């Protein structure tokens, strides 16, 4: 009988651990990323933002891929300002939960 609660507890803990490990991916569509002088500026500003775990420039798609940890929600207005400060204009943004 003791094994069932233990199993349930383990399952809940495992599930909650998986949830904690997840986060959000933001794809920011920005023009002019081919020039590293400005692209590095976006990376620099985003990496200093609390909760951001990684920033990658996808030149082929013209997209900045930002990953943030669980609980670190980034709002569009803030991202728009960060991109503007780096010398770009944020064209559009999509977000999806990380698996």
């Amino acid at each position, binding site marked *: 009988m003791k094994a069932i609660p233990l199993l349930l507890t383990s399952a809940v803990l495992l599930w909650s651990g998986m949830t904690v490990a997840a986060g959000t991916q933001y794809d920011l569509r920005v023009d002019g990323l081919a020039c*590293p002088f400005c692209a*590095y500026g976006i990376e620099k500003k985003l990496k200093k933002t609390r909760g951001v775990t990684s920033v990658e420039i996808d*030149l082929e798609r013209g997209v900045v891929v930002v990953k943030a940890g669980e609980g670190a929600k980034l709002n569009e207005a803030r991202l728009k300002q960060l991109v503007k400060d780096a010398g770009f204009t944020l064209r559009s943004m999509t977000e999806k939960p990380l698996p």
Partner: protein
Amino acid sequence: MRPAKIHILTARRLLVLVSTAILLSSCAWFPSVKEQPYKLALSWGEKGSDPGQFNDPTGIAVSADEMFVSDARNGRIQVFDFNGRFIRQIGKPGEGADELGRPMNLAIVNDELYVADYWNDRIQVYALDGAHRRSIGASGSGPGEFNAPVGVAAGPNGDLYVADFYNQRVQHLRRDGKFVRQWGMTGKTGFRAGQFNYPTDVALDNGGRLYVADGYNDRVQVFEQNGDFSHKWGGPFAMNISGPFIAWFATATSIAVGPQGNIFVADFYNDRVQKFTPGGAFLTVFGIRPGGPAHTAIAVAVSAEGAVFVANFDLHRVEKWVAD
């Protein structure tokens, strides 16, 4: 009747004058090639992090017998001989005293290597053997502070000139980082003489004149040794009009003075290097078209023998070009 006739004559003269002015201006804006283009003699490198590989080469400088390349995403400087043989590495990625964030344009003066460190907001100075000598500057917009330094030049007395990218200015500092003066308005872009729109690099000639690659103004600006504005060039009126024509720019990202005093400019979005007289008269152009969405010629340096070394950003390699 007489006043009307005079009026017509004056109008005709004015028309001829304006047409002539436009024609002359057009000649100035669309010059012809005065020298043979350079030819590609050698290239080396590919994307990677091993010795001899690059991940975003963004700066280049030459000493008497070695060539130094900013390997930005690998956070290091790689040193080669003039035939592309790897010799050593300087710096490693990080924020520590002797480490590099994103190294950009470089300068070598008096056996010291000056590195504009974009991410750490400082100028790193190394001996040419790689020993770290000192760091200059800190993050900010005050005198002697930087917001993404991207280009550096040094005078024979150790004075520094720094292209301070997001602060929209060029700073003149003493060897120890003490502020002397600046060109441009801090944090404000402008297209008039002495103003900047994301300056990317600086170079000094033997007479102490300062050449600035005024990146997004698509032009070069020149300042006398006493700091006065001298002249500018790049497209019509040299005021932020970009284009693919010769002597025009589409983001100037690096500038170097050759052994004869001529000026070489990396014209990034046009994927080429352009060569000018110190006065800005166009001489020749050379480069390689990109294979992907990135662009090629991002940084340029010239050896004492006149070989031109170019960092090819798209192909993650270094190229050696020689006069044909």
